[in-house]
């Protein structure tokens, strides 16, 4: 009874997930892995590449705004793009459960195809496995890997933020997480919300090829904006201060969060980037983002400061302050 076991909290992307990573590092740690980026940065002779892998177990398989196929492509290319590289090739491994309808499988593959076209990557290798009924969450899991070519002279690591830099978010937060929660949690919530799942590599391409002052990029997926900012503050050993009233939250997202007792800052996004840039390039960053279909709502939310290193502080609407902490465990609806 007292053996330590995995609970759903370990999948939340917050501090519990770190316990798993610690074991992996203990046995497998090496200078590349220890960077803990979304992708590994490698030198193959004269070529610098980014290499990533990811698994998708989303339930439901189809949700408003996308499906597991679209999210598998977008999530993977975004991981490459955030490390300052251009995604080129990816793999697709399907773990299918007995009983899955071919029609649904085909829908997912078609969706992989259109997302890959949009992101301008090729699926070049793959694998399929079939498992017994009940062993793949009622449908299918997807595992991917991808490689990308690094942009010349660009380093977008989360450790590059320095006091004086500014923080931009490319739109509203919490759309994806709340959409999925509405679908899944036996909560019976209905809304017109859609997941924001989108490939961000074209936007990153425009930024990295025309603005020299990009310091850090991060996509605020699991753990939401809070986790992304805590990562940057922690890795850069700097403080971050953000303004509550600058952060855009859709009315439906806020309403669902109020109902269920969630903080929109902790909710996952699948089509947003957090951009830290030098003060003099912020204007240009906002212009480029606003001209891109996936960055129309981009907004400056705060700055990097020398006070309270490794800590993210939110200036609240009422002029108070609070610490934004790394989310823990999973979001469960609360009555309190």
């Amino acid at each position, binding site marked *: *009874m007292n053996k330590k*076991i*995995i*609970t*759903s*909290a370990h999948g939340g992307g917050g*501090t*519990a997930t770190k316990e798993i990573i610690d074991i992996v590092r203990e046995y497998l740690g090496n200078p590349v892995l220890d960077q803990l980026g979304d992708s590994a940065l490698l030198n193959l002779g004269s070529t610098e590449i980014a290499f990533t892998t990811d698994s998708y177990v989303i339930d439901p398989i189809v949700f408003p705004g996308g499906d597991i196929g679209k999210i598998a492509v977008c999530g993977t290319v975004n991981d490459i793009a955030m490390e300052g590289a251009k995604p080129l090739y990816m793999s697709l491994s399907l773990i299918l459960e007995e009983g899955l309808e071919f029609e649904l499988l085909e829908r997912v593959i078609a969706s992989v195809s259109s997302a890959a076209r949009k992101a301008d990557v090729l699926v070049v290798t793959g694998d399929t496995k079939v498992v017994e009924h009940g062993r793949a969450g009622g449908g299918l899991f997807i595992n991917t890997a991808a490689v990308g070519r690094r942009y010349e002279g660009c380093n977008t690591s989360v450790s590059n933020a320095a006091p004086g830099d500014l923080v931009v978010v490319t739109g509203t937060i919490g759309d994806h997480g709340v959409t999925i929660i509405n679908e899944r*949690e*036996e*909560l*019976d919530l209905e809304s017109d919300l859609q997941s924001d799942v989108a490939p961000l590599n074209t936007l990153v391409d425009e930024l990295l090829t025309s603005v020299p002052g990009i310091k850090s990029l991060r996509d605020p997926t699991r753990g939401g904006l809070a986790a992304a900012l805590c990562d940057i503050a922690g890795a850069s050993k700097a403080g971050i201060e953000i303004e509550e009233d600058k952060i855009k939250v859709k009315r439906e997202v806020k309403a669902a969060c109020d*109902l*269920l*007792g969630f*903080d929109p800052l902790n909710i996952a996004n699948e089509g947003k980037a957090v951009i830290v840039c030098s003060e003099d390039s912020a204007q240009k960053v906002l212009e480029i983002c606003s001209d891109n279909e996936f960055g129309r709502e981009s907004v400056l939310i705060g700055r990097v400061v020398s006070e*309270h290193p490794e800590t993210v*502080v*939110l*200036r*609240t*609407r*009422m*002029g*108070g*302050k*609070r*610490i934004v*902490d790394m989310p*823990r*465990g999973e979001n*469960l*609806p*609360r*009555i*309190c």
Partner: protein
Amino acid sequence: MTVDKLVESISNKSDRIGRTVNLMEVCGTHTMAAFRSGIRTRLPEQVRLLSGPGCPVCVTSDNYIDHAIELAMTENTIITTFGDMMRVPGSRGSLSLAKARGKDIRVIYSPQQALVAARKNPGREVIFLGVGFETTTPLVAWTIQNAYSRKMPNYSVLCAHKTIMPAMRALCDSDDVRVDGFLCPGHVSVITGAEIYKPLCREYHAPCVIAGFEPEDILLSIDMLLNQIISGEASVEIQYTRSVTAAGNKLAQKCVNDVFKPCDASWRGMGVIPSSGLSVRSSYKEYDAELKFPRIRVSEVKRDTGCRCGDVLRAVITPSECGLFKKECTPDNPIGPCMVSSEGTCAAYYRYSRIDE
């Protein structure tokens, strides 16, 4: 009044009083709202907000959690619960761990979903973990009435509902707690009405203001409490007039009285408080999980962890005065309930605590 004007007014009144004033926000949702909006960082030093025992999850005893886990381990059961309860440690792990071991434990948003689960699974026993104060109790009472009228045989409630007044009295009676005024729980008062706090004013001369949950509501309520302190009054005032009346919600009260009766209840950190709990009346006894599934292992494992949640819940100490706080006890490895519940005082302090300028 704008936030800035309210803050200014509170500062002026605090200067007039000229000593430290301890105000207790009884309700955990107030604790959360105050931290999340940064109210504490805008109050003058001499106005201190203490957090009270109004977090139902925090005051739930080990014994109850152990019983719930025992039920989860029982053949053919489905446990339905509010999300708040999942990570609370009993003496032998939490519901979250039991779920990870494959037990059928479902987090729901509304107690009505527990009834739906019972209807959809006629061959299995659906048990709802009934925790919460006066706001939540009527909802659970309604599910029992509904199950009774539909003659639903496979639904029951493991009841740990509590009432807040006896706990507030116990605080006023204890020698080591010094409270100059109460921010009374807004949503509890929606059900009970404002009248229930009268004895606190009469017997203990404690100012009471029933507060809403927006930052402006809380600030205005603090301002109202300071007014009472300055004038030496002690009365019950309603700041949260848009939701709270003097008499409360009669339909909800009727529903609760029909299904539940008062009983003594054990509060974590405060011990047994007479008539502070509710149990299912015998007319509905087939819906009382306590009777339906008697405890198998009654031996309660006493855990001596050094946890001082009890003192935190009574506002005798602040979380940082507990030896475990931020050391052994963190939100990832919560030792006491005040760290487990997201609205627990320790968790709130850990997450949002005052930022030293």
